[in-house]
């Protein structure tokens, strides 16, 4: 079993009567880029707050970088860079002064390298030119970059990024992706939350899907794709015969009569071991004429809509 960078068991957070996070069992393998996907209000930020010790959990356990949280918060968090619910800064300080202050907040961060590290982080997110500007004069995208620079102030074993590309232009989005990849290439684990599937698809090797506070799927992207429901589509001018054959195989096809006299039979393939070629042979052996036969996979997006039960842009 691979080492886990983040591991939760039955993690639960209750706000009054509302369960914001409900029995979460996360397993984030070390060294991966892990996507944390869910519609608005599904509990992503709340989970991240609990991981970072900002909010206490109502129930459940958290282990991060092999240590129990939040009891080991002092030794774990210096190894973790984070962006939580958007960047936040002192508007009256320059971008650089903001980073100097946040770096000073960590007792273990070495004073000697502070300036160099701050400048390197600013350089990495492309803010060197705007470093001396006051943060209140920053655009949304500049703030987002500064927030990312803060997460990268020191070499980290784990990055926890809550919607890191929020407010960035396409160019900025690509740069952030490049930064995340470079961090991952250095061996760090990256945990990225997003409500955008496309982003996760481009960036992540693993993914977990949240819906209304519950984890509805977790695994590699491939596993998730494999899990998606496949359908057998048969085009035949003999719909009744075809239906009998397919029913004999245990399928429940729906029939749509085409205007040309033929019919399209669609059946879900519940069993991944059930191969389309078996169906083909059975149809041929029964003398059913077949115009076309295909296995249609769900798109990942359709899969997620099916999992979360709603569009990604619908508040939960």
């Amino acid at each position, binding site marked *: 079993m691979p080492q886990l960078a983040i591991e939760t068991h039955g993690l639960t957070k209750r706000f009054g009567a509302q369960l914001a996070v409900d029995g979460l069992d996360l397993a984030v393998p070390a060294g991966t880029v892990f996507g944390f996907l869910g519609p608005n209000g599904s509990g992503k930020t709340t989970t991240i707050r609990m991981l970072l*010790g900002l909010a*206490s959990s109502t129930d459940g356990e958290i282990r991060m970088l092999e240590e129990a949280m*939040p*009891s080991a*918060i002092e030794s774990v968090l210096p190894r973790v860079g984070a962006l939580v619910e958007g960047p936040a800064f002192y508007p009256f300080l320059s971008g650089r002064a903001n980073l100097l202050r946040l770096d000073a907040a960590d007792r273990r961060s070495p004073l000697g390298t502070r300036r160099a590290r701050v400048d390197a982080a600013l350089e990495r997110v492309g803010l060197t030119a705007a470093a001396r500007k006051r943060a209140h004069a920053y655009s949304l995208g500049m703030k987002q970059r500064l927030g990312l620079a803060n997460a990268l102030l020191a070499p980290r074993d784990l990055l926890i990024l809550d919607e890191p590309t929020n407010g960035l232009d396409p160019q900025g989005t690509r740069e952030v992706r490049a930064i995340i990849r470079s961090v991952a290439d250095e061996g760090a684990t990256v945990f990225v939350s997003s409500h955008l599937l496309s982003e996760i698809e481009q960036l992540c090797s693993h993914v977990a899907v949240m819906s209304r506070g519950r984890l509805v799927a977790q695994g590699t992207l491939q596993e998730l794709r494999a899990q998606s429901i496949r359908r057998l589509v048969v085009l035949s001018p003999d719909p009744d015969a075809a239906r009998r054959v397919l029913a004999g195989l245990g399928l429940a096809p729906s029939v749509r009569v085409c205007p040309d006299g033929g019919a399209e039979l669609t059946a879900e393939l519940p069993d991944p071991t059930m191969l389309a070629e078996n169906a083909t042979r059975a149809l041929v052996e029964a003398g059913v004429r077949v115009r076309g036969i295909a296995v249609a996979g769900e798109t990942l997006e359709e899969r997620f809509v099916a999992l979360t039960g709603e569009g990604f842009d619908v508040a939960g």
Partner: protein
Amino acid sequence: MNRYARWIPAVAVPALVVAGAIAVPAVASAAPTLPEKSPAQVLAMVADAKGVSYSGTLEQSSNLGLPQLPASAASPHAAASDSTAADLLQLLSRTNRIRVYVDGETKQRVQVLDDLAERDVVRNGSTVWTWDSKGRKATKVTLPSKGAATKSDSTVTPASLAAKLIAAVQPATQLSVSSTASIAGRDAYQLTMTPKTAGTLVRDVVLSVDAKTGLPLQVRVDATGQKAAAVTVGFTAIDYGKPDAKLFDFSAPSGAKVTTKDLSQAKRPEGNHGAVPQGADAARPSTVGTGWSTIAVLPAASDDRSRGLQSQKLFGQLTQKVAGGSAVQTSLVSVLFADDGRVLVGAVPVSALQAAAG
């Protein structure tokens, strides 16, 4: 949640400190055990205590059941005479801090510590300075060089108050050494004086005397009608070292209004303690009754003075209309301003004053 549990000491420790700070002094002031002494022996110690050197802080508090007045009554904007009356009232109704420095019989300094102000009496041999920081007023009095030590001021120290009490009330008073106490960190005998008559408002007077030096450390007067002490004057801290000689070396600061009085040739007016300089035309007071229930009757003063007094706002707030005049009833003393202008004062109920007024 248990990550927070380790911070419990951060809350618990200060809480314990506070609890300790409250509890420890309470334990420390438990009554000491001292060899038994009779009232006479204790009084002898007091008489013996002349010439001690010490410095200390006293606290004087009264609980006379006077009506409470808003602090604004004492504001500098009030009429001058009204504010003097309010000053006096303040002296009676709130806690006053007093510092005393005594170096034997001839060098004394008394400081009444007011808020951002101070009144001083400094005696150095035959020179006595008084100083009032509010008006920046200083008075220099030269005492008769050979005269006996004159108590130059009405300021109350335990020593002066105790001596006066003992002389005045012994015939009518039951004396007992009831218990011991710790006052200002000193072991002390408590001499209780209980009036033999029931006609007075005074329940008892308790004098606490330093068991080692014989210095009176505290005087407490209890009234019949209430549990809390009516008047308490006592040391909160005392140090038997010789005070710094510079303290008695007073001279008027520059810019002060200085009055000079030379009494070195003058005869001391008899029967007058010199505390309150009285108008030349003031008639002598007479007394009715004896002992604790003595009533002083002050004859009608020159009219404008008493009318001036009665027209003041404070007067109305303090007095009640009774048959035959207006009266002030405190838990310890009653005053009757009779309609004919006489003023009757005594440690008795108002009814007794009315009876004496006739």
